[in-house]
C-alpha cells in the first residue's frame, strides 16, 4: 500500500488510488470537474493540478497514481495561481445566467470561483453563443452555453448505460454537447447526467424553476421503487410552501453506496415520488357504513379494528401484508398475527405486468422489502387460498395492506368476488386505490418519507430510511398503528409497546435470526447484510 505525504500529512492508500482521492483521505480538497470516480479518466478540465516534488510543473491529480514516497502539495502559490487561471478560462464564455439558473446554490463554478477564483474579470468581447433550453429527453434539458465540456455526461451514456446518445460536436470553443437530430435521451438512467453535470448545463425538467435549492432540507433514505433499494436523499421544501406548487417533496437524488447503487439511480425511482403529495393520500381513518364515509379519530378506529378482530375466529381472518412495508411494520404485524393465532397471512400478490429488469440497477420486483417479508416469515398462508376462502365465506375478515388487488395479476373477477363476499374488508395504506374504495375500514399509513424504518433489499442488505417530512393529515407509521392495536388488545409485547421505530427493530433483531445482533447504529448509512 503506497505511503505518501500530502500537505505535510502522511497517508497510506490502496494501490491505484489517484491523487484526488488520496488528498481527500488526507483531508485536502482538490477541486475538479471532469473527474468522477464512477467514470473513466478524461483529464480535460485541468483544474485538479497539484504540485508533486521532483516534478518541474504541476500535474493533474486525477491521472496521477499515488506512489510510495511521493510528496504532494495542494496549496502552493503556483497551484493556487493555476487554479485561479483555470477558473478564469472556464468562465470566459460562460453566460451570466445565475439569476435564472436552477443550479445556483449547488453550482461548482460558483463554489470554486468563491474558493479559488475571486479575480477581476477582464473578458469584454462577445461570448460564444450556443443553443439554450433544449429538451434532450423526458427528464433532461440542455443549456449548451453553460456547458463547461467536462464530458461527464457523454462518458456516462457511453460507459454506464452503453447507449451513446450524447456526443461532443465541432471543435475548439465551438464544441457543443448534443444529441443526434431526431434522437432523444431516453435511457432509463437519463436523470443521472443531471447529478453529475457540475453546472447548470443539464438540469431537471421537472424541477425546473420550482424552488431554490437553498430552501431545501435533506434526509437520507432508500428508494421504495424496487428490490434494489438504491440509497437516496429526499430533498424537501418546507420553508417556501408557495414554491414547488405546495408539494413538500421537491426531488430525489441518489446517495453513494458502493455495494448497492454506486452513484446512480434509475429514472423510475428518481421521479417516483409524486404520489407522496397527491390527492389520493389517505388523511384520516374512515369507517364506511351504509354508503356513508365517517371520519374517525385513532382511538375510535383502533376500537373498530379490535372489535372486528374479536368478532371473528382466527381461521376466519386473512391478512395480505405488503412488501412495501418496512421491517418494523412487518414484524409488528407478525406479532399481532401470532398473538391472535391468525395463520392465513401472505405478502405475495403478482403484478399485473411483469416488472422490467436490467444488469445495471433495476429489479423486476417493484417492492423494496420483499426479502424482509420473507425473512420475517409472513408466508404461512397463500394469497390465492386466502381470496378463495373469502369467496367461499370461510374467511370473513380481509385485512389488506397497500395492495390494489383489482389492479394486479390476480383475475379481477375473482378479486371482486372475494371482496364482495367478505363480511369486512380493512384497508391500511398511504394512498387510496380501487381496493380501498370498497373497504369498510380505511386506516391511513404514513409514507416512507414521513417516518423512519428499514428495508431489506434483494441481496439481504438491511438499510435505514429516515424521516424527511411530517406525515400528512392523521397518517401514522404502520408499526405505530399496529402498536396501538396491540396495546388495545392487551398483552404487553415490547414490540407493540414501542414509541420509536428503533425499539421495534430491537425486538425484531432479538426474534428473527437473520437480523440477530443488528442495531440502527451498526446499520448506519451503508447498511448491513442479513444472515442468510
Amino acid at each position, binding site marked *: 500500500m503506497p505511503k505518501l505525504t500530502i500537505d505535510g500529512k502522511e497517508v497510506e492508500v490502496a494501490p491505484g488510488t489517484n491523487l484526488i482521492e488520496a488528498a481527500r483521505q488526507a483531508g485536502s480538497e482538490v477541486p475538479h470537474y471532469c473527474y468522477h470516480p464512477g467514470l473513466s479518466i478524461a483529464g480535460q478540465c485541468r483544474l485538479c493540478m497539484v504540485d508533486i516534488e521532483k516534478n518541474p510543473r504541476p500535474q493533474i491529480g486525477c491521472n496521477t497514481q499515488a506512489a510510495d514516497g511521493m510528496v504532494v502539495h495542494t496549496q502552493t502559490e503556483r497551484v493556487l495561481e493555476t487554479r485561479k487561471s483555470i477558473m478564469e478560462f472556464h468562465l470566459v464564455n460562460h453566460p451570466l445566467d445565475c439569476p435564472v439558473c436552477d443550479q445556483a446554490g449547488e453550482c461548482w463554478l460558483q463554489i470554486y470561483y468563491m474558493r479559488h477564483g475571486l479575480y477581476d474579470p477582464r473578458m469584454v468581447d462577445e461570448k460564444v453563443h450556443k443553443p439554450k433550453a433544449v429538451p434532450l429527453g423526458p427528464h433532461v434539458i440542455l443549456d449548451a452555453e453553460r456547458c463547461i465540456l467536462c464530458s461527464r455526461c457523454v462518458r456516462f451514456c457511453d460507459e454506464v448505460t452503453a447507449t451513446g446518445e*450524447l456526443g*461532443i*460536436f*465541432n*471543435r475548439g470553443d465551438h464544441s457543443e454537447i*448534443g444529441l*443526434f*437530430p*431526431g434522437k432523444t435521451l431516453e435511457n432509463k438512467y437519463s436523470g443521472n447526467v443531471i447529478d453529475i453535470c457540475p453546472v447548470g448545463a443539464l438540469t431537471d425538467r421537472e424541477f425546473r424553476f420550482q424552488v431554490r435549492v437553498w430552501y431545501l432540507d435533506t434526509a437520507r433514505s432508500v428508494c421504495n421503487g424496487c428490490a434494489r433499494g438504491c440509497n437516496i436523499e429526499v430533498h424537501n421544501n418546507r420553508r417556501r410552501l408557495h414554491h414547488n406548487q405546495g408539494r413538500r417533496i421537491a426531488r430525489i437524488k441518489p446517495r453513494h453506496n458502493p455495494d448497492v447503487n454506486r452513484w446512480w439511480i434509475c429514472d423510475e425511482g428518481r421521479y417516483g415520488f409524486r404520489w407522496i403529495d397527491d390527492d389520493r393520500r389517505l388523511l384520516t381513518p374512515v369507517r364506511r357504513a351504509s354508503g356513508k364515509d365517517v371520519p374517525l379519530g385513532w382511538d375510535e378506529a383502533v376500537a373498530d379494528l379490535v372489535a372486528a378482530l374479536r368478532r371473528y375466529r382466527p381461521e376466519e381472518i386473512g391478512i395480505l401484508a405488503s412488501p412495501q412495508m418496512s421491517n418494523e411494520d412487518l414484524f409488528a404485524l407478525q406479532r399481532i398475527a401470532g398473538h391472535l393465532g391468525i395463520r392465513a397471512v401472505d405478502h405475495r400478490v403478482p403484478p399485473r405486468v411483469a416488472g422490467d429488469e436490467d444488469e445495471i440497477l433495476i429489479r423486476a420486483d417493484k417492492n423494496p422489502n420483499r426479502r424482509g417479508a420473507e425473512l420475517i416469515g409472513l408466508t404461512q398462508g397463500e394469497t390465492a387460498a386466502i381470496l378463495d376462502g373469502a369467496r367461499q365465506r370461510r374467511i370473513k375478515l380481509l385485512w389488506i395492506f397497500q395492495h390494489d388487488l383489482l389492479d394486479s395479476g390476480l383475475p379481477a373477477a375473482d378479486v371482486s368476488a372475494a371482496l364482495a363476499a367478505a363480511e369486512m374488508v380493512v384497508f391500511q395504506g398511504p394512498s387510496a386505490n380501487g381496493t380501498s374504495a370498497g373497504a369498510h375500514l380505511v386506516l391511513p399509513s404514513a409514507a416512507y418519507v414521513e417516518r423512519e424504518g428499514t428495508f431489506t433489499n434483494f441481496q439481504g442488505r438491511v438499510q435505514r430510511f429516515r424521516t424527511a417530512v411530517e406525515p400528512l393529515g392523521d397518517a401514522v407509521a404502520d408499526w405505530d398503528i399496529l402498536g396501538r392495536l396491540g396495546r388495545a388488545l392487551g398483552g404487553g409485547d415490547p414490540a407493540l409497546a414501542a414509541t420509536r421505530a428503533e425499539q421495534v427493530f430491537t425486538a425484531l433483531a432479538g426474534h428473527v435470526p437473520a437480523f440477530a445482533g443488528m442495531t440502527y447504529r451498526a446499520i448506519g448509512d451503508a447498511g448491513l447484510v442479513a444472515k442468510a
Partner: protein
Amino acid sequence: MSLYEAIQEVRSIYPEDSESAVLPALRLAQEEHGWLSPEVIREVADALEVTPAFVKSIASYYDQFHLAPVGEHLVEVCTNVSCAVVGAQQVVEAFEGGLGCHAGETSADGKVTLRTVECLGGCGWATIVAIDSHYRTHVKASDVPAIVEELTGGD
C-alpha cells in the same frame, strides 16, 4: 458496390473492434452524396454499427466534411501567414467578386462554394488555392477571373 459494401471492405483493413473506418467511410459517403446530411450520417452509422451521435461528432470535428450542401466545385484559398503576406486576401476578394458571394458561401448558380482555409502545406508556392482538393500554386488576384470562368463555364 454499394456504400454499405464499400464501408465493410474498408473496415476489414483496420483492427477489429476499432472505429478507424469512420474517417474513410465518411469520405466515401461524401463522395457519393456530395455532403453529409443527417440521413447520410445515419447510413454511415448503421454500416459501421455505431450510434449516429458518434458519427456526427466525428464529421463535425473535421474541416473537410460538409454538414451542409456545397456547390459543384469547392474553392479553398489558404489565408494563413505565408500566403497572407503575398496577397492571399486579394485572391479571396477577387473570388468573392468573380463569384458574387462571400467566403463561406456558395455562388447563386450553385456551381462554386468558396472558403478560406488554414495552411495547406504549399507555403513555398503561395498563394495556394485548392480546387476540388487539388492544389493550384502561385495564384495571384489577376489569375482569378480565368479560374472562375473555368469553373462556372463562363457565366
